[in-house]
């Protein structure tokens, strides 16, 4: 899959409380959750994002709370991909489970500036930032299988059918 979009850049240790504040965790509708992404620290973020845009982050993106509301909100806002130097463990699983493309690519994450044109090839694992090409870390085979299935929901669906 080829993903192309404009970069929005955030720093290190962006936690899920910052991505989606706790007071909105009673919401379950993705479109409603999308309206509160980064609300506390960057109230205009939601209005700046256009469908297909790409989020670039530093180290330990998605740390803290396990709230799946965070990746749901990012995806529903129209962000097509998250590229980071590293991800916190639970966010990493949540994103894969939901079919939100994520890539670990420290070089690309460090090179990207807000507004850069970014092109991602999820099959080859290459990330192009403002003309420079970087290679993302490959996923282990089992995760490739999960990603190819479209996430954990269709994967479990198939498992249950097999049983």
């Amino acid at each position, binding site marked *: 899959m080829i993903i192309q979009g404009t970069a929005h850049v955030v720093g290190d240790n962006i936690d899920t409380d910052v991505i989606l504040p706790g007071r909105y965790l009673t919401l379950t509708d993705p479109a409603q959750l999308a309206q509160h992404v980064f609300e506390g620290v960057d109230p205009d973020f939601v209005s700046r994002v256009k469908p297909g845009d790409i989020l670039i982050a530093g180290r*330990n993106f998605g740390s*803290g709370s396990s709230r799946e509301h965070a990746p749901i909100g990012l995806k529903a806002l129209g962000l097509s991909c998250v590229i980071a130097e590293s991800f916190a463990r639970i966010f990493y699983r949540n994103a894969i489970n939901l079919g939100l493309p994520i890539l670990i690519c420290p070089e690309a994450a460090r090179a990207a500036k807000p507004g850069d044109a970014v092109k991602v090839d999820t099959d080859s694992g290459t990330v192009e930032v403002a003309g420079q090409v970087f290679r993302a870390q490959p996923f282990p085979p089992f995760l490739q299988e999960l990603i190819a299935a479209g996430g954990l*929901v269709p994967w*479990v669906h198939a498992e249950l059918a097999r049983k």
Partner: protein
Amino acid sequence: MGQTMAEKILAQHAISGEVEPGRIIRARIDTVLLNDVSGPLSFKQFYEMGATRVAAPEGVVLVCDHFAPAPSISAAHGLKAMRQFAEEQRIPHFFDVGQGGIEHTLLPERHLIAPGDLIIGGDSHTCTYGAFDAFGTGLGSTDIAAAMALGELWFLVPESVQFIFHGTKRPFVTGKDIILRVLQEIGADGATYQAMEFAGEGIASLSIDERMAVCNMAVEGGAKTGIVVPDAVTEAWARDHAAARPYQFVAPDPDAHYAASYTFDLADFGPMVARPHSPANVVPADEVLGTHVDQVYIGNCANGTITDLRQAASVLGGRHVARGTRAVVVPATQRVYEQAMAEGLIAQLIEAGVAVSTPTCGACFGGHMGLLDDGEVAITTTNRNFRGRMGHAGAQVYLANAYVAAAAAVAGEIVDPAQVGVNVAGAKDGNA
């Protein structure tokens, strides 16, 4: 080669795959925990997966604790979803408002876990169960739904990191300070995707409640879990509180392999504080003395135990919350609340001018019961001080133990508990 505790517990639960760090296995699960934040999303995904029945209803625990009692109509909707799922799926272990309390303090209190267990929860602080010789780890709602549907889940076998504590604690030092010291050392992502193992006579000297405080914040270093090497304290807890099924204590092999090993001497540090806006932004409490606090919050899944309430009451008893400061104390469970009443702690806190709340996750995650406004400063016994976590993004939160938090309530600013005239022997330590 020998195995670490995390490797041993995963090996005992593995259905397929090789238990070696970096490998992916499928494993059966003893307990699946959901709360009113992770639950509603998880129920949706469960049915979306085509599942109709929970694979093992006895192994599922539903706890209403985050937006409980409901502060809004949308929260009431989420709590209703919990009741409906419990009914539809005949989940025996369902804790409604007024019947349980904060999940991670509740499960070990109600015979729902045992040593050697593999426990997953739709809450990042599920790592707390490492205090009981169990492997607990937090996951998102979709993973939890998959585990309910299949009775198993995939796990990446983590590397293990060892933290050895020698020596004896200094006055007013608790389990909270020990984990803050660890976070100071390794940073907010220093143990990402790793299992922490806590050992040494310094750890053995901690009560079960203090061990919970240590393991609870393993995730603040990015860890998948944090486990204390079992000993007589673990055995005593298990005799009175473990689930009524066969279980086995798990200890590390002498030749187990650790990715890293850290050694600390408890004599080397006093009470620690995490400054805004990271639990790993840790300094000795001495470095922030004199910081004015608008709110003191004592509670949450890390430090709302009877031990914490005794520590708080030992400072606040016979004293009063300072003008210009407010204090909220949240007993973690109904039973902790009852015991605190029986011991006279609640009366002492109320006389001191403290707002005592029903058990709830409340303001810890910015839900309700004491949010902060722009520019306000709080000191809390909770586990996270991220920007905006407890309310306005312009608020500042310091994390500390219950002695330090309670002393700040009395002084109106961060002080050494000895400064308000507290004798450390005043608080009885340990679990009842």
